[in-house]
């Protein structure tokens, strides 16, 4: 590792919100109590598909302690909303449904009462007459001609189609000397945020709504709520001081936010709605389950020629963010390789089950499970070294993904070398133990303005007080990923001050500039750029004053570092930053120094301004007779450009690994008859400390010109490779090809048994 040229960046610092979090002082929406607050509970559909004929809540209203009952038909504008505001067809969810339910758990009515218990008891007193309709919960069934229609106007339940292509696929397949095709099946996965969906809405008779909520994007929720409630955006204040996890599940409007708001508007009192863990499982969306067909053609020397994929995704009852997942899975299915010709046809299908949406990796983990295993099998079929085959076809700096993206920085080659070296160092492993590897790449800030925001993607305001303390106002959202610390570090580095000088203000739409929020791995790059620009703007103003004050020849350049304002040519000559601040404010008639910054990607293709690369290795022991997997070690070679927040980076990568291993092995989320079969933490298996392998991270040194200080994505992309790496380890240890994720122990044991029986014959 080269010496750190920065004084704040890439050092180990305490998270700026750490003290509050380790002392129990951090107040989450879950902890918010307001004077006179009521508690809301949601009545949910027991049917996967039914018409609502009548809702009778008269008995519930008579129940002592019940203050209000709301239904979609009587108490809402019935606005169908969605995050794809540019495409009205895809705004298909009313949240509190008006006439029809389309999945088990869909909100049907909501009650506000003086206690949570009374609200819950009152739910039993609401009578709903349903006309139960035939339902379908699998996409391959839902596209059949006689399948029940879930949304009017969406024939054969096809919700969205997406195509990506370049090159002449037919011709490229003809050039191929070896073609392999496989079908894969990918399961859903639950975000399982430790803090369930929660909101405390407080509507006051002056027409203003304040809402505390657990969100990945305060601004999105401000705008989405304005749309469904008929309020001006500016009259809604969204507060999200601490958020107990998001992972892609908390930037759509949810039942807690909507029902708390509608109830509060009816009562003019604060109303708190917190999902139980079971509600969170059945009614807060999931990673998109998919059927994946992959056909790949290569030359005998391992050169990639063509790839074709057809994908059917189980969209569940509504669109949500699912249309983007459909696009991104197709795009990242090509990653991180160069294909002469590539064709992806994706179909998102409505079904009567929990809606599917974005989740960490955003469609890519599904794609990589298929792609990276098939590549391994092809190398094996052809007797080629799989790492060299990947290297031969990999992206490189300057490569253009035809019509899609230009790769400005790429550490794939070095990452492959690092993993190759680690693999070699392990030597020969004992029986039933093998190393599986997988490569991946990911975006660094999604360029999708489906939301049609008129604001910059990210904005920041830096205000310098007379004592040198700095107020950093950003709309970025801290959800645990560490962005408040990362942005504070960028601000401190750019200004040349200490991290302790920075106070970060985020998670409050009244006091932070708009920002699209925490999704698509965008905060470090986009909010980071905006922060850097704002800090540099403020610094420029300070230096103007310093120039005047210090009286150097104008040919000299000034800078600030670690609180010292100095002449770059003569660093010992200068003055204290803190003294400078005091005087600079006087020079501005007492006004504070304010710097502004923003970032909106331009001319950066359709997906992202930059891409991260990684190669993942897993050392796995398999008990093939039972299907039990023990992961001994996880090693990641990772190119995220310039590391900013050292501890945060390691934490993000380890956290991603835990979630990715869950996707690959533990986190089975079965749906039968439209019903999630394990909506609790006893039956839904989350990896725990004893099972979590040690993780080693090898940083690959690259510089991303579009990123702040050369930084790019870390933390989301690493959800992509583990499932395939697990599959590849199983393949080398047992010869089995596992085509369904999560790879279930039972499936391994069964395949092993069948293989042995076949061998006996």
């Amino acid at each position, binding site marked *: 590792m080269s010496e750190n040229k920065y004084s704040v960046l890439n050092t180990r610092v305490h998270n700026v919100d750490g003290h509050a979090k380790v002392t129990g002082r951090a107040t989450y929406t879950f902890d918010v109590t307001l004077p006179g607050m009521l508690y809301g509970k949601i009545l949910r559909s027991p049917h996967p598909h039914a018409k609502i004929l009548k809702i009778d809540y008269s008995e519930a209203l008579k129940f002592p302690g019940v203050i209000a009952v709301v239904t979609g038909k009587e108490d809402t504008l019935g606005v169908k909303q969605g995050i794809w505001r540019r495409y009205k067809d895809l705004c298909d969810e009313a949240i509190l449904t008006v006439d029809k339910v389309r999945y088990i758990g869909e909100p049907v009515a909501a009650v506000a009462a003086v206690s949570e218990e009374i609200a819950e*008891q009152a739910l039993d007193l609401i009578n709903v007459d349903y006309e139960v309709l035939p339902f379908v919960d699998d996409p391959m069934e839902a596209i059949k001609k006689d399948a029940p229609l879930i949304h009017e106007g969406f024939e054969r339940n096809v919700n969205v189609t997406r195509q990506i292509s370049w090159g002449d696929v037919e011709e490229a397949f003809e050039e191929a000397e070896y073609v392999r095709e496989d079908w894969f099946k990918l399961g859903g996965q639950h975000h399982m945020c430790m803090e369930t969906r929660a909101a405390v809405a407080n509507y006051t008779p002056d027409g203003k709504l304040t809402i505390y909520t657990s969100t990945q994007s305060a601004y999105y929720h401000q705008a989405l709520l304005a749309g469904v409630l008929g309020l001006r955006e500016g009259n809604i204040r969204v507060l999200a001081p601490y958020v107990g996890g998001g992972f892609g599940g908390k930037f759509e409007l949810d039942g807690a936010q909507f029902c708390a708001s509608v109830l509060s508007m009816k009562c003019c009192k604060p109303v708190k709605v917190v999902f139980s863990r079971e509600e969170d499982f059945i009614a807060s969306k999931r990673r998109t389950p998919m059927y994946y067909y992959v056909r790949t053609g290569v030359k005998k020397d391992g050169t990639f020629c063509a790839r074709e994929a057809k994908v059917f995704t189980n969209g569940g009852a509504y669109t949500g963010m699912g249309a983007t997942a459909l696009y991104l899975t197709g795009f990242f299915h090509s990653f991180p390789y160069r294909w002469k010709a590539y064709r992806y046809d994706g179909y998102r299908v409505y079904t009567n089950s929990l809606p599917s949406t974005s989740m960490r990796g955003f469609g890519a983990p599904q794609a990589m499970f298929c792609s990276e295993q098939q590549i391994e099998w092809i190398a094996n079929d052809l007797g080629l070294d799989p790492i060299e085959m990947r290297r031969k076809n990999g992206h490189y700096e300057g490569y253009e993904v035809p019509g899609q993206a230009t790769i400005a920085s790429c550490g794939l080659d070095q990452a492959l070398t690092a993993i190759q070296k680690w693999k070699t160092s392990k030597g020969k492993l004992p029986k039933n133990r093998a190393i599986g590897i997988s490569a991946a790449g990911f975006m660094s800030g999604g360029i999708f303005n489906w939301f049609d925001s008129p604001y910059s993607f990210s904005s920041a305001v830096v205000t310098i007080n007379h004592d040198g303390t700095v107020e950093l106002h950003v709309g970025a959202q801290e959800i645990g990923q560490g962005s408040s610390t990362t942005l504070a570090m960028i601000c401190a580095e750019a200004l040349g001050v200490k991290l302790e000088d920075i106070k970060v203000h985020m998670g409050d739409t009244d006091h932070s500039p708009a920002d699209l929020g925490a999704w698509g791995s965008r905060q470090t790059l986009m909010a980071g750029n905006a922060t850097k620009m704002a800090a540099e703007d403020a610094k420029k103003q300070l230096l103007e004053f310093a120039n005047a004050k210090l009286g150097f020849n104008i040919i000299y350049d000034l800078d600030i570092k670690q609180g010292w304002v100095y002449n770059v040519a003569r660093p010992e000559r200068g003055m204290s930053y803190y003294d400078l601040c005091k005087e600079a404010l006087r020079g501005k008639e007492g006004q504070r120094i304010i710097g502004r910054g923003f970032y909106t990607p331009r001319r950066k293709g359709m997906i992202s301004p930059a891409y991260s690369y990684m190669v993942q290795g897993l050392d796995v022991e398999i008990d093939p007779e*039972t299907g039990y997997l023990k992961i001994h070690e996880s090693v990641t070679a990772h190119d995220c450009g310039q590391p900013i927040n050292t501890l945060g980076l390691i934490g993000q990568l380890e956290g991603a690994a835990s979630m990715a291993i869950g996707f690959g092995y533990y986190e*089975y989320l*079965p749906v039968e008859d439209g019903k999630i079969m394990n909506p609790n933490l006893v039956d839904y298996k989350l*990896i*725990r400390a*004893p*099972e979590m392998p040690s993780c080693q991270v090898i940083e690959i040194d690259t510089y991303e010109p579009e990123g702040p200080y050369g930084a790019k994505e870390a933390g989301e992309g690493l959800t992509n490779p583990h499932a395939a790496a697990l599959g590849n380890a199983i393949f080398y240890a047992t010869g089995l090809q596992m085509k369904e994720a999560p790879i279930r*122990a039972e499936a391994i044991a069964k395949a092993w*048994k069948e293989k042995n029986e076949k061998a006996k014959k």
Partner: protein
Amino acid sequence: MIHDFTYLQPGSVKEALAMLAEHKDDCKVICGGQSLLIVMRQGLVQTEYLIDIKGLNELNYIKYDDKGGLKIGATTTHRAIEKSDVIAKKYPVLVDMEHKLASIQVRNWGTIGGNLAHADSAGDPAPVLTALNATVKVGSAKGERTIPLDEFYTDLFETAMEPGELVLEVQVPAPAPKTATAYQKFNLLESDQGIVAVAVSITIDAGGTCKEARIVLGNAASTSIRAKNAEAVLVGKKLTDALFEKAGEAASQECEPVGDIHASEEYRRHLIGVLTRRMAKAAFEQAKKMG
């Protein structure tokens, strides 16, 4: 949401038994409550009276002597068993079992009596204690009686206890010579309940012939069950890998598991076979090493 109940906190076993006699079917007993409170919260269990025996220290003990064997009072916590020196020395399998029973938090508060009375067929202690030939002492206002653990369970969440009876103690005979017990549950997360579990106790004679075998299956039927056909495969024989394999096959046939989202019936039978084979061999190997 837990339904309301009247909370009773007896100061002695006698008082507890009197309360049980008075309220019979209208009451439930809570001890550590690590399982009971979950089902009460789900609304699956409602009760008019809840008798809390957690504080009954007269049932909180671990006693051992070579003649009478081990006696564990009902309100003894899992953690106390896990950390008991005498149990570690005499019944190491019990300590191993407790290590992987849920989490430290649960073991700190949960009790052996509560666990056995809850009668979850996936519970860890029952198969191990049954393999160790344990007996449960139960009491009521009318008196006390003992029930061998392999007759204690009648159905899922059902025991042979009459209304008004309370688990007082678990009794485990002193270990016989050249006897070893092995236990394993199969799960993906090591302290989860077992998808299936197998405990095997094997006694061999000086020549290495199997004198006695007790094979107990967890979560392979509505209660933990003895695999008597599998035991018969081993008893009276010089033990070999082929016999362990056969015992496994017998166990996988005689168990009565049901399929659920965690495992199909077929997979559970398969796992029972594999684990029976492995545990029988493990117990045998340990017994061989004993003097």
